Every structure is written in structure tokens, then in C-alpha cells.
């Protein structure tokens, strides 16, 4: 969660991350409404809007599809709108996106896709320029924070002038890098109001055929316009080699090849064909330096039959960096590395001390059970010592995967598995999976891990937390009754830190030959700060060195000299797990006055 005000450099200049710059640009462009579902690296866009720019009505949606649909509706009403999501979020929102492209924009529509090359915190590295092209929408690619701000403002204009949604394609290094941004005031634009227009907004086949023709013409018009626009530019230099690049890759090229002729593409769909043709005529050879897929390379080479190179020398997988780009453009000129890398133990992320998920995974592990997993902090249940998660596909898939396993091999065939899914992910896209289980007669167990927070992305509210993005109170979604209404007969709520009850519940539900839901309910440690600094203590006299406490995988407990050593700094005051697992009472804690 962001808690800081934006840094002021001097009058009219701010030090902003790409995400903060998007928020700023949206505000300056007179945006009225914004909706998103959190996802790294996009989350701070809506958080910044909520904290800094109250003129924009901003909200979290249950998922990206809903976020974009609500934004579309607001655009129909004549409001300027922004919707933000991580790259895989755009898959969820793809259904409205593809048809919204036909419908177009009344109030400007800017959709932010934050791609994650290198997969710093994602399950794939899809390049959403391919999505934007398939949807036939405008794609803008900023290379730093200044451009992120500028392109949101320009994007709103393009969206309204050309009647199209605009996809702002960011990447992790643009979202989470900070640089100085020149800013301006907000331009107030009235909401133009809703007028019914069924030819424009009801894509029944007869209408949609006409709409598609308009889209095709729109792309031609935009391409011609784009060749004249400052979004794309030629930076003349050494004519022997011309580099075509976009996004953050442009910055790496400038770093390692300051002498090169460069065509910087800012609008990557539709492409500025006239400008590209001009550039090809200026240089002898062409090299494409782009992160991810050979998107520019394939399109430009196939149109002009140019013998350029690109992915032959620039990696397709992972992130680019100045090192990688230097190696590709100027092989053999890498900076000398004086100190060699040492093989050191890795430091992967772990569940926080006091994390409510720890109790659930400890019990699964103890019962030699495991889970089909989902997307969230609890994906960390796969790590030792728990080793209690075996699959992850996408948001909500834990439930479908468990059902499918039952169809293929039966309950006996998959052994002791439950579907483990956080409450926010369940609301995002797990509910339909549960309805499918009921409908199609599945008998497995779904464990909804309700920590009352969308935690992995830094702690955001969702429909189960009782708060909105702006801090206003909201109704609390009743998960128990929701599951019952779906048709689940057996719904149990358990505190995952009550290990006895947790284990008993898991045992019972794993044995049950009917569909059941276990809701493990305990708030995330990020939800509150305990007043009292109480920590567990270890009595080495009583300790029998059984290492049971080490099976918790708690960052506050380390093994030293044959006994557990508890870090008073890390131990979470409201957690009592180690005290419960010690069979000889060697770990204790003053729990009075805790609740």
C-alpha cells in the first residue's frame, strides 16, 4: 500500500513512478472514472488515484472483466475513463475488450496493461501488444514516466477523436521505475451525458458488420495520422545501422548505442507505415530491439520484405537490460566484470510471521495432504517445509482443476487434495468454478482462505473486507451463504490458527464423499498492528529437539544449537502456532490481553 505523498522536485516537476505518472496523466486529462483489479505491476495506479486525485471516482472491481465493463458503461455516459490491470488481467477482460473495439468510445477510454517480462511476479510473460493488435485497438508504449503521463493524456484525445479504446502497454520496468516528470493542471471536461445509440452499442450481426468496417477504416486513418504524430520519431544518427525499438528497450538502446539511427515507436498499433518506410530508406541495415515477442519485427519485415534482424540476436525470453542489449548490438564490448558471482543460498519470499495461511498449510502437510493452488500469497504453500501445493494455472483455476482431476481419475486417483483459493481470488473467478462443481456433481473440498485482504499485491480491499478503495464502508460479502446458495451442503468456518480444529476439519472434509467448503478465516497480519509486543520464548531445558516447530516454516524461528531460537523482532504477537505444535511445552507465550 502506498503511504507517501508524491515527491515534489520543483514547481511543475514531480519524481514519479510510471504507475504514479499514469495516475497523474489521467487526472490532468480530466478523467472522471477509474476501475481496476489489483495485480503487480499495475496496482499503484488506482491506489495513487484514490490517495492523490479525488476528482477521479476510482474503485476496485471484483475482477478485470467487471472493471472494464463498468468503465465502458461510464464511457457510454460520456465520462473519460481509465481501467488498469496486469497483463494476465487483460485475458480476463478480453471479452469486453474485443467488442468494445467495435463499439468505440463516447468518453475517452484508456486501458492500462502492465506486462511483466521476466516474470518478477507473474505466471507467464505474454506480450499484450499481440492482444491489442488482435482486438484492433490503439496501442501506446511509454518508455519512462514522462511518456506514461503524456500518453495517457494523448490517449484520451485519440480515443475520442478516433472513436476507439486505447491500450497503454506498460512493462514492469516502466511501471516501477521513477524519473522526473513535467506536469500540468487538470483540464475539466464535463461528462457529456448518455444518449441511446443502438447502431453504435448493440453489436447484433447486422450492426456489427458495419462496425467492423468502421474499425478497419479507423486503423487506416490512425496509421496515416500516426506517421505525422510526435508519438513516433526518427532520431537520425549513423546511417549504417538503424534500430527500431519501443518501450523501455528504447532507453537501453540510447544507453549502449548513443550514435545509432533510431526509429522510436510510441504507437505500436496501428503502425506508422509512412514513417517506417521513410526510416528504412535512411539506413543500410535494420535491427529490431524489442522486449518480448518479435511484434514490430514480424509486422514490419513482412510488409516491406526487409532483411532485418531482431530476435536472431535479441532474446525472446525474459527482460532486456542494458547488458543484454549491449551484448546484442555490440558483442564483445561488455563492461569488464571485476568480481565473479558467488553461489549463495537463495532468498525466496516466505509467508510472513503470523500469516493465517501457515496454520492451514501446516495441517495439510501434517495430514500428508496437498492442494490444487491458486494465485495469491498462499501460492507460497508450495515451498518447504509445507510442500502443500501442486498446481497453479490462473486466477480461480484451483477449483476447476480439482474438478477435472476427479473426472479423470476419481477422488481415489488424486489422493488427499483440496482446492486452496484466497477469498479475493474466489470472488474474482472462483465462484463459477464452485457452481460448476455443484452442477456437475463433484465431491471434492474447496478451502477458501479468507484473510480479509487482497494481500499479495500489498493489501487491497475487496468485496469481503467491508471497505472500498477510497476507505468508505461497504457491505460485506457473506461467503458462507454465498456457497450455500450455490448449492454446497457442507460449509464450515475454521480459524486456521486453531490447529486442532483446523486438522480435524480437514480430516473430516477430506473423508467426506460429498462436496464441501472449508472457509479458513483469520485476518492478514497487514490488517492490524497489535498493541502489545509479546513474543514466544523457547525453554531449552524442556526442549527435546524434535524439530516439530521447524515444520511451521516460520521466519521468526531458526534452528541453533539443537533448539529453536525465536526472533523477538519477527515473532508476531497474535500468533500462537509454535506454542501449539511443541509437544513438550518448551515454547510459551504470555497471551493475556491479546484479543
Amino acid at each position: 500500500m502506498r503511504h507517501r505523498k508524491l515527491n515534489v522536485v520543483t514547481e511543475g516537476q514531480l519524481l514519479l513512478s510510471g504507475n504514479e505518472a499514469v495516475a497523474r496523466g489521467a487526472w490532468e486529462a480530466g478523467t472522471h472514472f477509474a476501475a481496476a483489479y489489483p495485480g503487480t505491476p499495475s496496482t499503484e495506479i488506482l491506489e495513487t488515484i484514490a490517495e492523490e486525485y479525488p476528482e477521479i471516482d476510482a474503485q476496485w472491481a471484483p475482477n478485470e472483466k467487471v472493471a472494464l465493463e463498468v468503465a465502458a458503461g461510464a464511457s457510454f455516459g460520456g465520462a473519460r475513463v481509465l481501467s488498469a490491470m496486469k497483463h494476465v488481467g487483460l485475458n480476463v477482460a478480453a471479452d469486453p475488450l474485443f467488442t468494445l473495439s467495435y463499439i468505440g468510445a463516447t468518453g475517452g477510454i484508456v486501458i492500462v496493461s502492465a506486462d511483466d517480462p521476466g516474470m518478477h511476479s507473474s505466471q507467464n510473460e505474454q506480450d499484450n501488444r499481440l492482444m491489442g493488435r488482435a482486438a484492433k485497438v490503439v496501442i501506446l508504449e511509454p518508455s519512462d514516466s514522462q511518456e506514461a503521463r503524456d500518453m495517457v493524456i494523448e490517449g484520451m484525445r485519440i480515443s475520442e477523436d478516433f472513436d476507439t479504446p486505447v491500450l497503454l502497454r506498460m512493462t514492469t520496468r516502466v511501471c516501477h521505475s521513477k524519473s522526473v516528470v513535467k506536469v500540468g493542471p487538470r483540464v475539466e471536461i464535463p461528462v457529456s451525458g448518455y444518449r441511446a445509440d443502438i447502431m453504435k452499442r448493440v453489436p447484433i450481426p447486422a450492426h456489427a458488420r458495419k462496425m467492423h468496417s468502421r474499425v478497419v477504416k479507423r486503423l487506416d486513418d490512425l496509421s496515416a495520422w500516426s506517421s505525422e504524430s510526435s508519438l513516433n520519431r526518427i532520431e537520425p544518427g549513423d546511417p549504417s545501422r538503424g534500430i527500431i525499438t519501443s518501450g523501455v528497450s528504447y532507453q537501453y538502446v540510447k544507453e549502449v548505442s548513443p550514435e545509432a539511427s533510431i526509429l522510436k515507436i510510441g504507437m505500436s498499433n496501428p503502425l506508422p507505415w509512412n514513417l517506417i518506410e521513410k526510416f528504412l530508406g535512411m539506413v543500410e541495415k535494420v535491427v529490431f530491439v524489442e522486449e518480448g515477442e518479435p511484434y514490430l519485427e514480424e509486422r514490419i519485415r513482412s510488409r516491406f520484405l526487409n532483411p532485418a534482424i531482431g530476435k536472431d540476436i535479441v532474446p525472446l525470453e525474459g527482460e532486456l537490460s542494458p547488458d543484454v542489449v549491449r551484448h546484442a548490438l555490440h558483442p564483445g564490448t561488455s563492461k569488464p566484470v571485476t568480481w565473479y558471482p558467488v553461489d549463495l543460498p537463495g532468498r525466496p519470499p516466505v509467508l510472513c510471521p503470523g500469516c493465517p495461511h501457515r496454520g492451514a498449510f501446516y495441517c495439510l502437510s501434517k495430514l500428508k495432504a496437498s492442494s490444487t493452488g491458486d494465485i495469491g500469497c498462499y501460492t507460497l504453500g508450495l515451498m518447504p517445509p509445507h510442500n502443500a501445493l501442486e498446481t497453479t494455472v490462473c486466477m480461480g483455476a484451483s477449483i476447476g482443476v480439482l474438478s477435472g482431476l476427479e473426472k479423470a481419475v476419481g477422488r481415489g486417483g488424486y489422493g488427499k487434495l483440496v482446492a486452496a483459493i484466497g477469498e479475493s481470488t474466489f470472488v474474482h473467478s472462483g465462484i463459477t468454478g464452485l457452481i460448476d462443481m455443484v452442477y456437475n456433481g463433484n465431491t471434492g473440498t474447496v478451502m477458501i482462505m479468507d484473510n480479509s485482504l487482497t494481500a499479495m499485491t500489498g493489501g487491497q480491499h475487496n468485496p469481503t473486507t467491508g471497505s472500498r478503495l477510497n476507505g468508505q464502508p461497504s457491505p460485506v460479502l457473506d461467503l458462507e451463504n454465498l456457497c450455500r446458495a450455490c448449492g454446497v451442503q457442507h460449509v464450515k468456518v475454521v480459524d486456521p490458527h486453531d490447529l486442532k480444529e483446523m486438522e480435524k476439519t480437514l480430516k473430516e472434509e477430506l473423508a467426506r464423499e460429498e462436496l464441501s467448503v472449508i472457509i479458513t478465516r483469520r485476518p492478514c497480519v497487514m490488517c492490524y498492528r497489535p498493541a502489545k509486543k509479546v513474543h514466544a520464548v523457547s525453554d531449552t531445558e524442556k526442549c527435546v529437539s524434535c524439530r516439530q516447530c521447524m515444520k511451521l516454516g516460520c521466519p521468526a524461528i531458526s534452528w541453533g544449537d539443537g533448539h529453536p531460537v525465536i526472533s523477538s523482532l519477527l515473532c508476531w504477537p497474535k500468533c500462537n502456532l509454535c506454542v501449539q505444535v511443541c509437544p513438550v511445552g518448551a515454547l510459551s507465550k504470555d497471551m493475556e490481553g491479546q484479543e
Partner: protein
Amino acid sequence: MKDSTTNVIICGTGGQGTLLASEVLCAAAMFQGFDVKKSEVHGMSQRGGSVSSHVRFGKKIYSPLVEKGTADLILAMEKMEGLRWAPFLAPGGRIVSCDLEINPMTVQTGAAEYPDIDALIREQGIPCHSIKAMEAAEELGNPKVVNMVLLGAIAPHMPIDEENWTKAIQECVPHKALEANLRAFARGREL
């Protein structure tokens, strides 16, 4: 003003204040009149994993990432994390490290051993300045300000004036914690 670019990598483990330290350095360099870029990765790093931030400042900065073999300074909030980034050091660069050891989970469970970092650093002869920053922070009554102590320790090596550091801390740190952070920074300058 130094004409060339200054490259700094600040690294540590989740929750140590690595990102706040880089925020302050960035703001200070900006107040000094430099063009500044910094890059970091959020997300998984928040759960006690490795955290790093690249800060670059100079006349004109393009790449937000430091290139291997070009870092003037590595500021490590934790010993092993500093050594992890050693290949990024420029000839003549150095590590300034907190003398703190934080065990990763594999070490805690006994699956791996915490390496003898001092010996590994000596073995290669990597210039490394170890600082008892945790001790200093605890003396100040607040282990959380260890990041400011370390920032204070590198301040004399940065082409940034005292007043711009102060201004940066005022800008970046929440008001109620300002006094403690300024004191920690001043203490670090003496180390």
C-alpha cells in the same frame, strides 16, 4: 558537479526499508540538480525475499537499470545480499554493508548454511566497508532506522550536498518519524 553518471544499487531483504532508502537517495540527487532514474521490483519481494533498487543519476540518464560492472556503490542492508550484487561493481567501486546477517528460510530449516560472507569477500578482495548500523540504530532506540544510518554512512561518498539530503529526508519520511530518521542519518555520517 560530477559530469559522469553515478550508479548505486541498494539491496536488502523484505521489510528492511531498502525502498525508502533508495527513495531518499533519489530525491537528494534530484535536489542536487541531477537527472535521476531508479528501478525496483515490488511484488514477491515484500514477503521477506531479496529486495533491490537501482539508482542512477547524472547529467542525462536513459536506462533505469545499472549495467553489470558499472556500479560505483552497493549499499547492502544485509551482508549476503551485498555479495550477491558484487558482479555489478565497477572497477574502483565498493560495497558498504550493514554487518547484519538475516537467515533465508533454507538456512533456518537447516537445509543450507549461511556462508562466511566476510571470508568470501576477502577471498576475492572485494572492497567492502562493513558498518555496525544495527547497533547504532538500536542505540538510537529504533532498529527500524537502520536504513537511514546506512544512508548517512554513504552520504560523504555521494556528490550531494548536506542540505539536499536533509530536504530529501523531509520530503520522503512521514512527519512523525522525521526526527528519528534525521538523527539516524546524522549518526550514520559519523560511522
